[in-house]
């Protein structure tokens, strides 16, 4: 087994194991904290794929900011403990059915795909390539995203203002 394959299996196991903790833990704070190793495992997979810019952003946004915001919100509710927040509700069977259908779909797709190798070569410096793509061919999508973010920002301010 090559080092790369070994690294992949270790990272995949880390991602899946902590993902399992996220969905099964009865304690909501444990779930939120378990997101961090899961995100870090995904970061490692990005690094294995030579996507260093995505890896950096993954840590900064997901492991750093999103997890912190989730924890922050949990601690602001329920007297700061999050212990009484229910993790399950009466919709368990429906959720299980949806999850099973999704699993069947994913497994079917995975087994029926030919998995061809991508054409072309990786750019030497993906950060610059991503920047060019954002401000060149995909500028409309990029600007559309920024408008969506701006709208949510303004919405958040308006909601916060109402309470005054």
């Amino acid at each position: 087994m090559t080092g790369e394959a070994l690294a992949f299996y270790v990272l995949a196991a880390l991602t899946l194991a902590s993902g399992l903790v996220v969905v099964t833990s009865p304690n909501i704070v444990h779930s939120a904290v378990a997101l961090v190793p899961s995100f870090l495992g995904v970061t490692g997979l990005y690094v294995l794929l030579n996507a260093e810019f995505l890896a950096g952003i993954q840590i900064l946004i997901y492991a750093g900011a999103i997890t912190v915001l989730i924890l922050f919100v949990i601690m602001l509710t329920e007297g700061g403990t999050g212990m009484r927040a229910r993790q399950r509700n009466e919709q368990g069977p429906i959720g299980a059915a949806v999850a099973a259908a999704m699993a069947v779909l994913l497994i079917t797709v995975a087994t029926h795909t030919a998995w061809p190798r991508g054409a072309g070569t990786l750019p030497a410096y993906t950060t610059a390539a991503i920047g060019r793509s954002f401000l060149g061919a995909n500028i409309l999508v990029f600007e559309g995203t920024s408008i969506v973010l701006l709208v949510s920002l303004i919405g958040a301010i308006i909601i916060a203002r109402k309470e005054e």
Partner: protein
Amino acid sequence: MPWYLELLRAVAGTILIFSGVAVIAAMFGVLLERKISAWIQSRLGPKHVGPQGLLQTLADTLKLLQKENIVPRRADPVIFASAVIVVPLAALLDYVVIPFGTTRAGPLIFRDLNIGVLYFAATSALVVVGILMAGWGSNNKYALLGGLRSAAQMVSYEIPMGLALITVALLAGSLSTVTIVNAQAGLWNIVSQPVAFLIFLVAATAEVNRTPFDLVEAESELVAGYFSEYTGMRFALFQLGEYGEMFAMAAMAVTLFLGGWRGPILPPVLWFVIKLYALIFVFMWVRWTFPRFRIDQLLGFSWKVLIPVALLNLVVTAFFVVVAHR
């Protein structure tokens, strides 16, 4: 290089960084902090252990090693124990991309990542996860309040810091720390980017939770904030993380704005150390001469002053970069 040798190198590097940071940054940093605070307050500071009190922190560390580890009864044992690892680890990860100097063989850096600056921002953002874990895991209201304040503060100050980092990267045309230092061969960035330097310094002070931004551990209201319940070596590890993070921030400021290892006559590593300690002195000077902010002033300052100024600075810099490239 085969992968197991790479792995071995990573382990060796980790041990090197850990011991170097533990001894130089944390131990010497604490001593320096006490000496400088004493000097500012017209006291003598530690004086008795070793010549001029030089071994005081060593004695304190040995003392802390022997202390009992107390876990509060209602605390969450897993979160409580693992927070201690997250905080220093996140601080130590910063050192991977800091170029300490240059030799004939090339720059003295653990790994010159081509996303160096982004990597630094990302790893320093991880500290707050550890702080939140410590605050919640202790099952103590003061610790929880400290953790909450830390989350609000660090999320707010990461944005101006990131904008200052982007401005510098824009000037150098690269995210690699070595390239950024090389781009400052003619003119240090502090001359061309004084605004970004100031923003970075202010945001760094807030990120490492030092006065005037130390609401996270404000002793007059929160005992010690998120690490109130920690004793013995666990307490020492939080101190290590805090001082490690402060040294990393200062080292990054040197790299980005003060020309890194560059300077005349003296060897590059020495120049780096001189600049590093000059900035450390500024951090300590600020800590012992300014009163603490209030939390709303602190957050308002970031969102209403620092972020608009940093954005404006970024736009102006981008404009001049584009004009220069025409």
